[in-house]
């Protein structure tokens, strides 16, 4: 089995990737801004109808007035239930947009800085499908698996848990499950966006089919990698997870202090960059980064590769 990249290096590679491939981060942010604006535009209109000439206390010490929103929700319950549909659609678009940008980002990592943006975008759009499939597999395992597990081991569901130990155990187990699923998902995404040598030999017409099988291969690959790197992989993943949790919490706190829109956006952008950095770092840990390791990106020219580095960042399955 290969020696993987040292952790500090992987971190740097990750952050570097977010800067080098900044357009994808910005795309993610734009989607975020656009969808939230679209979601809330009708709410704004309703609020305006209510508040422009109405007098009611909406903001109180400690936040928005619950009493006002009780009225608001009932007064506009019909409008809001119609909006439910629109929001579903917008959320679908949001998911799709993010799949494309994530696929684009991972493709860019694979192909390196020099790859034409249009090519990477096209790859991203195409590869959003297998990425979505992978998300769906993991999601449905969680969704359908949980009740199944809970029925097999009812104490997991802690129906009668009544003490810190049972409770802590149940809660810890649930958290562990979520983290594990997320860890596997992250690494499976990375393996989904690596190219095996034999893929070159797959005839063109069959290739779309191959991309439907590949998520399963990527999942297996992720399991193998996590099993063979039981410390490094979770450690790297956890550090980024904690980092972004801290960012979210800090910004949530700041939100309540009424900071300006611009600062909020900087924070959101930072948090988005954290998740792309995490992907970049995890990729650096598992596969050579294209810019640094040309052999993983056969279509590309090496850009600033360090020979010593490529020796330590080999792909465990290809070595």
């Amino acid at each position, binding site marked *: 089995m290969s020696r993987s990249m040292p952790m500090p290096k992987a971190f740097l590679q990750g952050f570097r990737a977010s800067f080098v491939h900044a357009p994808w981060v910005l795309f993610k942010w734009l989607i975020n801004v656009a969808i939230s604006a679209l979601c809330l535009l009708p709410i704004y209109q309703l609020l305006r109808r209510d508040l422009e000439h*109405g007098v*009611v206390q909406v*903001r109180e010490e400690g936040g928005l*007035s619950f009493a006002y929103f*009780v009225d608001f929700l009932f007064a506009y319950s019909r409008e809001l239930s119609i909006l439910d549909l629109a929001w579903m659609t917008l959320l679908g678009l949001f998911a799709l947009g993010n799949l494309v940008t994530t696929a684009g980002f991972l493709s860019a990592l694979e192909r390196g800085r020099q790859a034409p943006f249009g090519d990477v975008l096209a790859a991203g759009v195409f590869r959003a499908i297998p990425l979505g499939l992978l998300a769906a597999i993991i999601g449905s395992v969680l969704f359908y698996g949980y009740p199944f597990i809970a029925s097999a081991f009812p104490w997991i569901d802690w129906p009668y848990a009544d003490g810190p130990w049972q409770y802590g155990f149940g809660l810890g187990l649930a958290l562990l499950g979520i983290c594990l699923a997320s860890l596997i998902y992250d690494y499976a995404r990375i393996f989904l966006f690596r190219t095996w040598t034999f893929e070159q030999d797959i005839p063109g017409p069959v290739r779309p089919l191959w991309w439907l099988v590949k998520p399963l291969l990527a999942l297996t690959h992720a399991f193998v990698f996590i099993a063979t790197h039981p410390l490094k992989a979770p450690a790297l993943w956890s550090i980024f997870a904690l980092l972004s949790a801290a960012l979210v919490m800090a910004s949530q706190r700041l939100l309540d202090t009424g900071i300006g829109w611009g600062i909020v956006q900087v924070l959101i952008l930072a948090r988005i960059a954290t998740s792309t950095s995490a992907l970049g770092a995890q990729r650096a840990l598992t596969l050579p980064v294209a810019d640094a390791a040309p052999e993983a990106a056969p279509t590309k020219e090496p850009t600033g590769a360090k020979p010593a580095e490529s020796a330590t960042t080999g792909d465990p399955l290809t070595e």
Partner: protein
Amino acid sequence: MLLRHREPTETGRPGTTRPEPGRRMFPKSVVPLLLLLALIPTGCSEWFTSTPPADQASDTTQPESTTPAPMVPPVAESGDLSESSADPVVQYDIQVQLDPDAKSLHGHQTLIYTNHSPDIIEELQFHLYMNAFKDQHSIYARETRQIFGVGLPSYGSIALDDVAVNGRQALSRITYPHQNQEGTGDETVATLPLDQPLFPGEQVSVFFDFTVKLPENTGRSGYIDDFFFIAQWFPKIGVWEPAGHRGRQESGWNCHPHHALSEFYADFGRYRITMTLPSEYVVGATGIKAAEQLSEDGTQKTLTYIQDRVHDFAWTAWPGFEVVERVFSLDEADYREAEERFGLSHEQAQLPPTRMILLIRPEHRDQTDRHFQALREGIKWFGWKLGPYPYESMTMVDPPREATGLEMMEYPTLVSLSTHWWQPEGYRDLEDLILHEFAHQYFQSMIATNEFEDPWLDEGFVTYTCLRALDVAYGRQHYYRVIKQAPVPLTRLMGFAAFPPVEQARYSFLPGKRVDPIHLPAWGFNSGDSYYGNVYEGAALTLFQLERELGEPVMDEVLRTYFERWSFKHPGIDAFRAIVNEVSGRDMNWFFDALIFSHGFIDYAVMPVRSLEPSEIEISTESDDEIREETEPEFDSFEAHLIEVRNLGTQAYPVTIEVRFTDGEVVRRDWDGTGSWHRFRLQHPHAVESVSVDPENKLILDFHRANNTWRAKPDQVTPRAVSLTLSTRLQHLLQILSGAF
């Protein structure tokens, strides 16, 4: 609470009898991923609007012979059937043996019944509540199926092994009036004809030898494993109501069968209960323990509990309880509070000591103080607002987690609660529950309304007073949603400020599609949700509305007078209404007609003001009948302003309309609120600054309060600021979600 919908929903399903606190809040049907927007309800989805099939509806009303007559004024205001005489109406003396393995009770009961009415009584009627669980033919089982779609999950019964009246055999004379001709059906009421009529002032002694088979974890009474909560367990005589009592036309027994949604009604009296059970069991019961004796081999013990002036007796037994007892007494801080917040002098604030007994599960030991603190707050609030708690003891029971069908129920001086080891400080579910159940000591245990026929007269008053007491003792709160038993402060997470407890009641009640008025018998409601919504929060909000109408001091005086006159008696709605009218010095019947006896919703809205140029005025005045107001023109160049208020709701409520002009002048007009709109013209040389309907914000039942005011100068800032706050929260949420894609 959420709260509030306290007593088991009587679904008959173990585990579902406790409505999740706040069950009606934050409905499920929302865009699941938009947590931020999870506040958006679909309105009626939470309320069953289906009508029961006609045959079923008649099915449930058929057994009722005594229907309430709410609108008939009382012939006499005498509900006092117990207090004035040396002998109370009922004196129960019961020896009972609990067999924990067979899950059964065997009892010998002597009841001495005294006829305090002016009537000659020829038969007695008894409740045999446990027969509700006898088979799927009981009214209880049929209604449970109809309302909740499930039958009885477990069975129980009460069998009469022997009956004697004044020492003479009477078992063969027992009949079951709600049985059908085939001799099957409901056996929760038994009739016992007397061979000699009972004349006014006379007593009769009735002996019962009975066996109870307890049901498992359902219907407020029964067992689960080795935990027992025993209520509605003995043959209990109905209430003889003379003509005129609670608006009755004719004298007769008030002895309803056990219904799925209804609770109870009984006469006050003296209880002396002696129970024998294995010695390892820890017992809690109504009243005071007078004696305890171990059997010779030490395996069994016999306890005697006595209590005067109560109308029921319940008890619990479980080896797992820890018993903590404290004595309630007032300290200096309490007297200061009484003076500062309740305006009571040291003298007026005096309250008698009460033995506060807590039977708690060991794993909840750390919540002991919270239990006692909440009970203290209850004893103080109710003591100071209504009158001192008169009994010697008050026992709180913390049942095992699994006992979902046996928790959160009130009996005289004994209540069952429900808690969980994780009770964050700000989460006031436990306190709310304790205050709710303690409030029942006043509303129903002492002011003994008929829970069958007037369920809101206890649950509504309890919810109202409990929310007030909660507000005084604990202040504003957040809404916690219980997810996997973990209370999550949802409103705080979503950026809302803490709110007064009454807002939670508004949120639970106002969105419901109302199909029933508040004043209905328990079995008269369209659905379980309609019952809970109206009887609890609906009635409570209406009482808050009454408080706003009368003012808090008058409302307090109403409550105090009601308690003073009607404790240990059986008032109906007329008794309360008469006190409201008398104390307030107003005829408030319209209020009851509008909000208690009819249903609908209230929403007044101010329309944008039209200000007319002098040239337009001629045209508008000549044809408009609706222009009802016109001030004398005092200026040469005046403007006329058309003020319009609409009633967008279905109920009418008198309102005040306030018009403010830019020069500071304020004009007020009253409108009786009827009709769908009201328009008038004011002439004033300055522009209108704002128009408000209900300017003092008294209309707590108004569905949509933002449209109660119209101001001329638009405010662009607030809607934008609020949207921006929401938007950034949504952005964060989306951004976290984006990690999944």
